[in-house]
């Protein structure tokens, strides 16, 4: 609440803000090029076309967070903002059932008690919801993971509403990005956001090489940035998802290319999706 900074923080709120968040650095070491990622305040972007496993990866991370420590989880709470009614609760429950050693209804409900879902229907509603979620971050010190699926859902509608001016088209998303950055830094969260590849591969090769300034050996990434600059600049890690042509086996494989934007480390990994979720090879 930007206008309330003169209001004194109570002791519990201060503690909740500074100390309560547990570290998420073991959440999925396969996803990151650097050791000890992600740290508090990191912002990660999953980018890829349809059917490449981005939402499955989010279920994988969510399950890892909400499972109890005895079953290999981190026992932290997760906030999931779903902008296009994409989230499938039944799939999350299937993944949890496969990962628990004994999957009773009570344990599943207990795990799901650590999961919060918010649906947004427009970028204005997303902005207003983010403002009102600030109290939730204050009052839930074990809420460490913040997921947004997906940030680009309102792109065409905002472009249509904004008319000719690019600034007007992007203004709400810019405000959302800035406020999310503030929330993540202030409350020591980790933000995972997905963006969809909705633009065609750029046929102009000079444009492509300038948009992706990293040197990748044989990696060919179909990336054309289209969201506002403030979002592109605040991302620490960008992970590109794509299908992997596996002519040998019948199992569909997917690949991720994980780029740490500050240190320029890049790794590539393969994974497949099974009944119990994502499985790295």
């Amino acid at each position, binding site marked *: 609440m930007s206008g309330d900074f003169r209001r004194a923080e109570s002791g519990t709120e201060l503690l909740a803000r500074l100390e309560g968040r547990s570290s998420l650095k073991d959440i999925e070491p396969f996803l990151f090029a650097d050791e000890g990622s992600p740290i508090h305040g990191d912002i990660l972007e999953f980018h890829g076309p349809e*059917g490449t496993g981005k939402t499955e990866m989010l279920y994988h991370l969510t399950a890892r967070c909400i499972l109890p420590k005895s079953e290999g989880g981190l026992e932290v709470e997760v906030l999931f903002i779903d902008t296009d009614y994409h989230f499938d609760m039944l799939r999350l429950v299937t993944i949890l059932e496969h990962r628990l050693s004994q999957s009773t209804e009570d344990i*599943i*409900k207990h*795990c*799901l008690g650590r999961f919060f879902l918010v649906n947004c229907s427009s970028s204005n509603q997303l902005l*207003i919801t983010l403002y009102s*979620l600030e109290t939730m971050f204050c009052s839930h010190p074990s809420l460490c993971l913040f997921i947004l699926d997906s940030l680009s859902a309102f792109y065409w509608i905002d472009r249509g509403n904004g008319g000719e001016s690019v600034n007007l088209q992007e203004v709400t998303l810019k405000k959302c990005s800035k406020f999310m950055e503030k929330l993540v830094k202030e409350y020591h969260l980790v933000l995972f956001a997905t963006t969809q590849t909705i633009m065609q591969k750029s046929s102009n090769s000079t444009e492509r090489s300038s948009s992706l300034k990293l040197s990748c050996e044989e990696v060919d990434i179909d990336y054309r940035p289209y969201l506002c600059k403030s979002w592109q600049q605040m991302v620490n890690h960008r992970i590109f998802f794509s299908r992997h042509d596996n002519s040998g086996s019948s199992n569909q494989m997917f690949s991720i290319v994980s780029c740490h934007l500050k240190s320029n480390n890049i790794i590539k990994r393969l994974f497949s999706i099974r009944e119990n979720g994502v499985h790295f090879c």
Partner: protein
Amino acid sequence: MGVLRVGLCPALTQEMIQLLRGIGIKTVVDLVSADLEEVSRKCSLSYKALVAVRRVLLVQFSSFPFNGADLYEELKTSTAILATGIASLDKLLDSGLYTGEVTEITGPPASGKTQVCLCTAASVAYSLGQSVLYIDSTGGLTASRLLQLLQARTEDEEEQKVFRVLPGDPKPCFQGLVGLSLPLLIGAGALQRIHVVRVFDIFQMLDAFQDLRGSISQQATNASGPVKIVVVDSVSAVVSPLLGGQHSEGLALMMQLARELKTLARELGIAVLVTNHVTRERESGKLRPALGRSWSFVPSTRVFLEAREGPGAPAGCRVASLTKSPRQPTGIQEVMEIGSCGTPEQNSSLEGSKS
């Protein structure tokens, strides 16, 4: 959401709105994102009053977070699976169409998409006794074909079923049916549960959805019961004319339609079945669903239909492949007979799958 008005919140008075407008705060979003200290200084309004108004606006317009456990409880009771009536397609879809999701059938022309839609409508209206909203933008629906599908279904079960045609129902085309055979009457009863809307452009389609919401929110009781499935044949017929060209308004309209379909599915607990046509990829020449990349994120399940190639292939035979699914592995295929959906041979396998 939108412009600040007097009725939004008790503390928001007309003078407050005028003062705020004076410093450029006109909409709810402007007020909520403004620095209230500065606003109270510039407008000489009470800081406490502004904070109170902001709090009320946030509660009113933001979306409420749901706890996973509550959501799961609700889903367990409200999710239904609607059988399409074609046994092999039901196997592909993991027993049928799930409510709360959008399922898409794509394929080249004459691959059987409209037949699948008709068969699904017949199956839901007759076997499940639920209402169907059928939005037809191609003119592919004929009541005689629907009646044929329904009759074929009833021939096996005429002993057990009680016919549900209510006297005095305002359907002039069925007045002449009194005194006809029992299967025809039962078929007519199920036909009344299928509401057909013919649309020719996207605005008419959006209007049809508005009418559906209106009738559900008023809880208009009709003899047919609540609508459980919306069939849109086809969505590409109304959207393709809008795409292409320099401006992106067509894409914005398409995404609004997509949002409307998904919201209907989730909020009203309805299954949505849409059809789409195919285009060829530029580089590889492979077939892929039309309407582009942005649309590809909208359906949660996609089935691709094509005719079976090769000599000796029976005429009504189609191969359905699952290209996107939230719960089954993609790439599985099933063979189906579209001409005969609803005939006694098909019915005997239906009997087995229904139990």
